[in-house]
């Protein structure tokens, strides 16, 4: 079988690209087309975690039916209880000298 001339093959390729409407790129130059061709990943990315309805979201919905967030209620009650026993958050230091970092012994 006789070898086909390279020029003929190139012509065939060009014609093929014309027919199938693909880019004729004989020297394989990087045109960046793959970044345009690739599908967008974002829409499927944001659907990865299933939607979880929180109590606050539920209460923000229209309608009269509201529910109590017992975990938040308990947390606030615990904070109050700690404050009552003097175990609350310390006061913000007004000056560097007041801060705990400064008063710590070396």
């Amino acid at each position, binding site marked *: 079988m006789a070898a086909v001339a390279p020029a003929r093959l190139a012509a065939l390729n060009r014609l093929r690209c014309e027919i199938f409407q693909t880019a004729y790129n004989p020297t394989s*130059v*990087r*045109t*960046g*087309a793959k*970044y*345009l061709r*690739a599908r*967008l*990943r*974002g*829409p499927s*990315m*944001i659907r*990865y*975690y*299933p939607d*979880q309805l*929180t109590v606050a979201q539920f209460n923000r919905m229209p309608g009269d039916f509201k529910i109590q967030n017992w975990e938040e209620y308990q947390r606030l009650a615990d904070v109050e209880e700690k404050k009552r026993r003097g175990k609350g958050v310390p006061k913000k230091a007004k000056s560097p000298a007041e801060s705990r970092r400064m008063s710590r012994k070396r």
Partner: protein
Amino acid sequence: MPNARVLRDIKARHGVNANEILRRAYLYVARNQTLPAQVRFQAQLQLNTFGRYTRPTTVKNRCIETGRGRGVISEFGLTRFQFRQKALANELPGVHKASW
């Protein structure tokens, strides 16, 4: 309430989704060898200005149940232990423990 790492991941996912088209356009210009080098360089500089939570590589598929980042079986989105527990509880359709 998902843990902080999951929240960060959700943030990254939304950032990627919001900036994807613009980033793709810049990528196309920056990687296109037929364009002048000056233009490509400018596009690359623009790409570098995007924040960290706009890059698709910052997104990690974490366990949808516990938020663990390792040992996640991608088909179910669960870590290996959650997968085992749910499979044993018959919560995963078509999955049951091998026995022969």
